[in-house]
């Protein structure tokens, strides 16, 4: 028991942070209220640094989880990108309200202040991501996933006092509930087919079934239903429909959060579920075919959907759907090359996508949030920094060499080819080429085109998101220098307990050959 608790230390830190933020946010002392985001960041930093310490201790063994190494990578990634996300939402919540209080026009009312709740929910959602890694049974997995999702519904709702945000929150909640039901149904069928909820026991039951001539149909249906429920989290077809509406409706900072945190959670959950079946003899054909269809549909629908959008956020929403499709290639490809590639890609995608949304979050035009393509036309004239980081982020998302995104895509595609999924890679390459249209349009509009004459110019009004955008752009450029390290970490994270084969990493021993 103590062993299990030991590895939950980062989660406890974030939980404590959530409590402090929730209380700090309704403090009558204005400086504390205004610095809730800063407090949240401190807890995230502590959590970030606690992870290597916690996983560095050899006194505790890590029992019963499917992928014992996964936690270290995911928790560090979640805490790091979480920091960027907290900074992205800097100045988002309660800005006008606090200003009114400061000017003496309004009085402080704990019921109207949202900052504390927002940050507490943000930390709770990140805690959920971390908890997924430690899931030993389906109940835990389900609860952790809901811990990721539930706060995001509220975050969407309180991020903007507009009809669209409320509508987005409503849709997100309804459809989220639907997908959770689907997933739970799947879990129930898995229980029916194996008689247990513990993942390792499910694994054993599955291998017994495999030896008896293949998985039971009910197990396959259960697995597929569970995966389809999870596809909602990663916004993959056909469960992607909510994404453009919700991404557009929420404030940019929250959209950045939605595009990363639930997606990471869903990805890890899918990997955990599939690892019960195992990739050694190939996934069961039905599951592999379903994933193939989903990946192809997701890539094509995501990239084609983005083409006609006039709203940048909607466009990036579709683009994030397409990125889920790319990551599914890695999931299909399996643990040796594919899953590490997925983890690396999640990291790269998290940073560059956050940078893109953070640029949007930092801008405003005539007091309104920036959304349409016209708004960012000629951005370089008013803010070269924002234009540059927008361009770098788009370039990285598109995968222009030598930016970070290129290496992520290369790893995924290489894994796909190694797994023999040539048709999948062709679809990925073609849809990736299609995506060049809208990413290059973002770059071209912000760097080359002239500002629209009518109306006010787009300006940078929030500094913190801009800082995040610049940091994200810098990482996109300098990231390839640390790529090898990230790859090694990702390889370590994916270590299936049974198959020691996955440990041998032929590709990374280039260094030894070099001598």
């Amino acid at each position, binding site marked *: 028991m103590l062993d299990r608790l030991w590895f939950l230390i980062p989660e406890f830190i974030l939980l404590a942070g959530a409590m402090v933020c929730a209380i700090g946010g309704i403090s009558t002392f204005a400086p504390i209220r205004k610095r809730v985001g800063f407090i949240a960041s401190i807890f995230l930093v502590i959590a970030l640094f606690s992870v290597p310490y916690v996983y560095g201790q050899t006194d505790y063994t890590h029992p019963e989880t499917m992928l014992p190494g996964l936690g270290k990578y995911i928790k560090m990634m979640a805490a790091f990108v979480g920091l960027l996300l907290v900074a992205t939402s800097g100045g988002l919540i309660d800005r006008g309200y606090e200003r009114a209080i400061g000017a003496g026009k309004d009085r402080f009312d704990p019921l109207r202040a949202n900052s504390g709740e927002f940050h507490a929910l943000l930390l709770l959602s990140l805690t959920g991501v971390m908890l997924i890694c430690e899931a030993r049974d389906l109940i835990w997995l389900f609860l952790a996933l809901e811990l990721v999702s539930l706060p995001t519904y509220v975050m969407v709702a309180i991020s903007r006092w507009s009809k669209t945000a409320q509508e987005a929150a*409503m*849709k997100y909640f*309804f*459809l989220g509930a*639907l*997908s959770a039901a*689907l997933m739970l149904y799947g879990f129930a069928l898995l229980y029916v087919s194996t008689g247990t909820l513990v993942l390792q026991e499910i694994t054993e039951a599955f291998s017994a079934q495999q030896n008896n001539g293949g998985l039971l*149909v009910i197990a*396959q*249906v259960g697995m*597929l*239903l569970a995966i*389809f429920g999870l*596809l*909602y989290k990663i916004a993959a*077809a*056909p*469960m992607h*429909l*909510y994404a*453009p*509406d919700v991404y557009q409706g929420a404030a940019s900072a929250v959209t950045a959060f939605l595009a990363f945190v639930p997606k990471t959670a869903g990805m890890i959950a899918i990997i955990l579920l599939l690892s019960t079946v195992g990739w050694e003899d190939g996934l069961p*054909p*039905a*599951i592999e*075919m*379903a994933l193939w*269809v*989903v990946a192809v549909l997701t890539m094509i*629908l995501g*990239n*084609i*959907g983005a*083409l*006609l959008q006039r709203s940048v956020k909607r466009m990036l929403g579709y683009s994030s759907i397409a990125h889920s499709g790319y990551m599914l290639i890695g999931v299909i490809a399996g643990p040796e*090359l594919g899953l590490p590639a997925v983890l690396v890609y999640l990291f790269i995608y998290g940073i560059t996508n956050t940078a893109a949304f953070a640029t949007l979050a930092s801008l405003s035009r005539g007091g309104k949030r920036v959304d349409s393509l016209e708004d960012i036309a000629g951005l370089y004239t008013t803010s070269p920094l924002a234009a540059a980081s927008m361009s770098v982020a788009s370039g990285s998302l598109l995968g222009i060499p*030598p930016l970070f995104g290129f*290496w992520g895509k*290369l*790893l995924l595609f*290489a894994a796909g*080819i*190694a797994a023999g999924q040539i048709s999948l890679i062709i679809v990925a390459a073609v849809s990736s080429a*299609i995506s060049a*249209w809208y990413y290059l349009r973002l770059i071209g509009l912000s760097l080359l085109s002239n500002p629209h004459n009518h109306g006010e110019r787009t300006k940078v009004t929030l500094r913190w998101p801009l800082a995040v955008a610049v940091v994200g752009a810098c990482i996109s450029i300098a990231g*390839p*220098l*640390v*790529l*090898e390290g990230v*790859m090694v970490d990702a390889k370590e994270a994916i270590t299936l307990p049974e198959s020691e084969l996955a440990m041998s990493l*032929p*590709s*990374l021993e*280039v*260094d030894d*050959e*070099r001598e």
Partner: protein
Amino acid sequence: MISIMQSIIATPAGQIDQLVDIVAPTWAQFILWMPLISLVLCGLCAALKVKTKAPAIITVISLATSFVLTLMLYFGYEGAEVIHIFEWIHVHWNGGSFISDFALYIDKLTLLWMLFVTGLGTLIAVYASEYMEHDVGKGYARFFAGVSVFLFAMSCLVMGDNLLMLYLGWEGVGFASYWLIGYFYQRPAAVAAAKKAFIVNRIGDLGLALAIYLIWSTFGTIQYDGISTALAAHNNDAATFSAFGGWTVHAIPYLLMLAAFGKSAQLPLYVWLPDAMEGPTPVSALIHAATMVTAGVYLIARTYPLFQLDDYALPIVAWVGGLTALFAATIGMAQYDIKRIMAYSTVSQLGYMFLGLGVLSSYGAAYHVFTHAFFKAVLFLTCGAIMHGFAGQLDLRKLSGLRKMRGWKIVSYTMLVGCLCLAGFPFTSGYFSKDAILAEAFVTQGSGFEILGWLAIFTAGLTAYYTFRVWFRVCCGPEYYEPGDELHGDDPSSFHPHPPRVAINFVLIAIASGAIIAALPYFMDNETKGINGGWVAEMVHDSPARGGVPNAVVAVVDGEHATAHEGVANAVVDQDHATHGSILGMDPHKAMYYISGVVGMIGLGFAFFFHLARRKAADSLRNKLLASRFTRWLPIAMENKWYVDEFYIAVIRTPLWILGKLFALIDRGIIDGLLVNGIAGTPRAIAKWFSPLHNGAVQSYAVSMIGGAALVILLMMFMPEIMSFLQSTMIGATP
């Protein structure tokens, strides 16, 4: 496939911090970095719109530092060595690798080149600080940034330890040349000249790129050390190479040759160099006379052993060089623009250098590069001073008696020094270096080298003529001038020439002294016994230009005639070269002193007669030639540069242009119109088709989601049943 990808992925991290094997002096790399630092600072000056001479000061100081470091490297030299800076490109895959480190290879050939590159670079930067002063605050920083780029690239080219470094430098100097020729970008002629230089050079660059690839595929390495090891293992013999190299060892020298001909302006790719004179004069002096254009000579000298693998490679180099020398000299004779005359003279002298390489006198070629760098630099710089002082006037018919004008004495006499050297006047540096080449043309036998030798001697006479045509016209005779058209707002009637001031005069004297002193190395003792030719010969001796392995060719290259006379010839490669030729029954080395001296004097005499004693005679001769139907083609063709540019335009440019237009039509009509727009339109059409799906109603989303999931799951679960059902219906339908 995958492992290749992974090794590519593994490399960008590029362990820069792993500075392994530091044995050689690490400070030597600052010869390379100083110009780069200067570039950054000049760029900052440009960005901050500095209105002082700071860019010039920065550049001069950094180049001078490079020069001092080169001197230190020279005096501390103990043997060829590699200075490793960082790992650049390491790609490994199963059973192969491509390695190119960012490393320097220092041997005496490198040092010889670096000494005059950095030395002259510094002096010419000083000169330019005054010459370019009318641009202070405008293009001043841009100019010196260009000079810094050039010096950095040239250092890479000369000091790199592998062919990829050389290629980096090769492209870098090409780019710097483009940058600086097009410096006056408001002038269409300058822009056109810059483009021409760049595009013509691309042809040569293609050769170099292919050669590097073939060298790598043949020898498995592109490092000089590795290539010489591979060559030594095969006894430097084409026959044994064909075992694993096949045709490639024969293709490599020709591709390298193409590259060298492009960069060093030889037939048929010389056309860019005369036009390159559109750049500021210091650039012409530094890049297009002294340093960059000798890169081709350097390339061949550096890869000399590879040229000896093919029987016809070096003779072709010799013939191209000899013919270029003659051809360019005839054009130079008939030009009126003194800078252009110097440009054609550069092409002609480069021809001599290639002749030297071709007839196995790599020492002569290197020595001529060395002396030419000085005397041609001083000639260009005096032309620049005249241009600067007379508002852009360069026509030798409109300038006269400069020697007697106030403040122009130094220019006149330093120009005289340059002219004497170029004309090969006895006991000047140019005399010794040209003689070394001419004599070797008679010593080395085969492939009509003797005819080539006589052609070269004839060319030497022409050289003396056109050189002194300039000096007698411009510096002697009655005082007379017409200002040029770059008056900067001055009134032509009240125009006064402004003679050069301290910086230009100082540099002129310094480089002219250098041109005189450059004769000394010929007499300097050298440590290695048995080679004549003095200091330069020793510098060349200790490099691949001598030949990496002992063979008959090398014996002659060194001038080790003692062994050659005795018939001790390791006649594996080329038996012809082992025997010692003669000229008119005399030893060429001695005879050439007299022959070239006399020929030079004859040319000088003609120049004296036509351009100083009786200037009218020159015009009347021209009129007589034009009057006769049989001879009129000669002056017209020569004045119009033999219509080579027009020929290229008609034969190469126009057809390509038409082809380009045709392709553009096809591209716009068929490829863009039908294919690209068609392909691009499809996703948009699909997108439009799918957009009703996104109608915003939560119910329809829910139905789509569940319906989609159900569809996929059902399909997957009942796949076998569906397949068998389909099969059965198909079978049922067929009979």
